């Protein structure tokens, strides 16, 4: 049999071209923006003061900041097909330490904050090392470390309270150039994500979550990247801890626990795939905003507050269902 040279044209060699250039697989990552826009619109119509009243933006965003920080880290970990529950422990232990032992005044607060951040990184490294070098599920490893560090937090500060450095409280409040600091932080996080997104580090996380054995064949340094991802997650949780403690002006030995499910929910609402390989921290932060808009929406609609939890669950299930439908469709 002879092959005619015409068969070797690109089209002949590679088969037909695809019909769609933009994958529908990316749709889930855009949905959080839709949720946020829709809810903001409703609140603005029903009860605009909740969003554009004096100080409302700053107050709302000061709730967004810690969840956005944690979601950023959670996204990195979930890209590798992992999960980090220990962020609850990190926030608790950080908060307990800040309210008891670390309450210097003025600039001397900085080394103490640095110590909290280093602690968060170390906790993350331990998670990452155990996960990378054993075959234990990330869920189990971080469930254990969450409990351990919550335990330590209770040892440091048995009941809610303590005193928080006034310098720290001042540092987290107020405006820069007329814009609340909380808004700035979310903005800076988005910029950092823009940078992270274009690094090899992120490609490696996607590769690991997409198919770990292929990533190994590709030459990805899997253990190193996993440790880095969990360390980054610990670091961001420590930063969240500092913000929460300063905002509430007291320490709480289990104050971090509420962030665990909230962060997972927000990341999923943001469209990141819990089975790894696909995700965006920017979308996760949008998911965090959507998650926190729900109680505001409920308040605006004059419903009792239990509807807040109800709708948070509802939006979660809608998001997950939507994501999985898109996933199966785009893989066909």
């Amino acid at each position: 049999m002879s092959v005619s040279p015409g068969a070797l044209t690109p089209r002949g060699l590679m088969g037909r071209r695809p019909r769609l250039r933009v994958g529908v697989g990316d749709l889930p990552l855009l949905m959080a923006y839709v949720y946020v826009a829709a809810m903001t619109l409703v609140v603005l119509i029903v009860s605009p003061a909740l969003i554009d009243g004096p100080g409302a933006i700053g107050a709302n965003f000061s709730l967004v900041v810690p969840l956005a920080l944690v979601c950023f880290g959670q996204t990195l970990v979930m890209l590798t097909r992992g999960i980090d529950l220990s962020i609850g422990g990190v926030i608790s232990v950080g908060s307990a330490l800040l309210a008891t032992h670390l309450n210097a005044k003025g600039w001397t607060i900085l080394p103490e904050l640095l110590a909290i951040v280093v602690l968060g990184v170390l906790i993350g490294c331990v998670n990452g090392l155990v996960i990378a070098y054993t075959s234990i599920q990330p869920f189990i490893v971080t469930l254990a470390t969450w409990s351990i560090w919550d335990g330590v937090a209770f040892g440091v500060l048995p009941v809610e309270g303590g005193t928080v450095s006034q310098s720290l409280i001042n540092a987290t409040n107020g405006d820069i150039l007329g814009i609340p600091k909380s808004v700035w932080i979310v903005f800076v996080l988005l910029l950092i994500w823009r940078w992270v997104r274009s690094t090899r580090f992120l490609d490696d996380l996607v590769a690991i979550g997409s198919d770990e054995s292929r990533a190994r064949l590709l030459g990805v340094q899997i253990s190193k990247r996993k440790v880095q991802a969990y360390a980054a997650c610990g670091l961001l949780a420590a930063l969240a801890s500092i913000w929460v403690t300063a905002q509430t002006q007291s320490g709480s030995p289990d104050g971090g626990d509420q962030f665990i499910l909230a962060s997972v929910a927000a990341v999923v609402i943001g469209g990141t795939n819990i089975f790894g390989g696909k995700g965006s921290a920017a979308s996760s932060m949008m998911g965090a905003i959507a998650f926190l808009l729900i109680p505001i929406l409920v308040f605006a609609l004059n419903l009792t507050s239990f509807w807040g939890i109800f709708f948070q669950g509802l939006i979660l299930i809608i998001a997950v269902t939507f994501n999985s439908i898109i996933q199966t469709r785009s893989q066909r």
Partner: protein
Amino acid sequence: MTATSLEISGLRKSFGGVEALRGANLTALGGETHALIGENGAGKSTLVKVLSGAVRPDSGEISLGGQRLAAFSPLAAREAGIATAFQELSLIPDLTVASNLLYGIEPKVRAGRIDRRALRQQATTLLEALGADGIDAGRPVRELSLGQRQILEVCKALTREPSVLILDEPTSALLPEQVQWLFGKVRAFAAAGGIALFISHRLEEIESLSDRVTVLRGGVDVGSGPIAEMAEARLVELMLGRPVDRVFPESPTEPASEEVVCEITDLSAPPRLRGVSMSIRRGEIVGVGGLQGQGQLALFLSLFGAIRSSGKVVMLGKTVRLRHPRAALDAGIALIPEDRASEGLCMTLSVRDNISVGSLARISDWGFVNRAKERKLIAFAVAQLNVVMRNLRQEVAALSGGNQQKVILGRVLAQRPSLLLMYDATRGVDVGTKAEIYRLMREQCESGTSILFYSTDVAELVNMADRVVVLHDGQIRAHLDGAEITESRIVAESVGGGASRHVS
């Protein structure tokens, strides 16, 4: 980069008590294409993984140009100039073609950032230079066809400018002209002084491409020499450790019965399948041919009730509504799927469970499995196959590919179907297992089962099928019967030029 020689000596590696390599040796020189062949489970893949640094050997050494390789890691292998196109592909579905192609050698800008635009441009240029410019560098690999991925995997290895290029079964999903493209690349690579290590099941490919050959069996090299001095029969004998008369069984002497088992009328599953009609008689083997992706998969999945379809299917005189695989199984239609790992087997279950799971209703009383009936069923299935396993409780994940395929056959045969659908069941299977599968197909037909099978291997269609239908664009383009079934005719009908242009 060129190396004068690649020397592998005394390589040993075991996985959990199973020795995959037991002191394997191989020597290849610069400028040569060296074929590595052996049955499934002979240790070829393990050898490739050791060479590429994915697996650390228990003992033994590898030298490149006299320099001993000090470390075994993907990075060390890459730095030594070894690049591999893996059989299971090392491409990340969620990353773009460009990111995959240039992984680890990306053009960087400030602060660790990868310049995505430059990356894409460079990838496009490289793909064009390699003659693979039909692959869009900006698309995620997930959207590529299997053949395109295989080509990209080869391009990725070539892009590393290696001194040793390893190709592990690179042609399994390629069209004939794509294979020619690949062979051209490999020849050029060897002509420039590189060492190409080529692993394939297809002996005719090995004969046309390689200079020397090494045969592995049971983890050791059992023969090596210039390809010109190794006759095909000698190679097969070395691979199997015993002489083999022929791979394909004799054609049956009696004609198939006239009784129609399955009558298919206007079966459609748009856009892939557009109105297929045919009838299959008792004890008949009907082959399905055609280029890849012309609706064959849709035909098989429709008949198995796994995708929605319209049209009429009559099994044994009764019209069946194939809305679910359950309905197909109840009507006596069984399927051996394409991807045994993801569609055919529960990898973590035992051999026994994987066989009996297809016939649970028949071996259960009041919803509980009757162990005595199960034993009988398994004995029936296992008696027909030579599965190499420790015992029936062994996980199928631990079996070699050929043996896994036999377990699927065992399950399907235990269901005693009237119509057996086989979708490329011999792909990536060694010669020995292939011969056994062919023998089983004949036996099944003699006992009254009809078989509809699709194969990418045209020789298989020619030697096994009583009739062949060639699919094109979701429709039957040709019915071939008896003496019309020849390789050139099937290929001619597949590519669509008609008989006149292509018969040479």
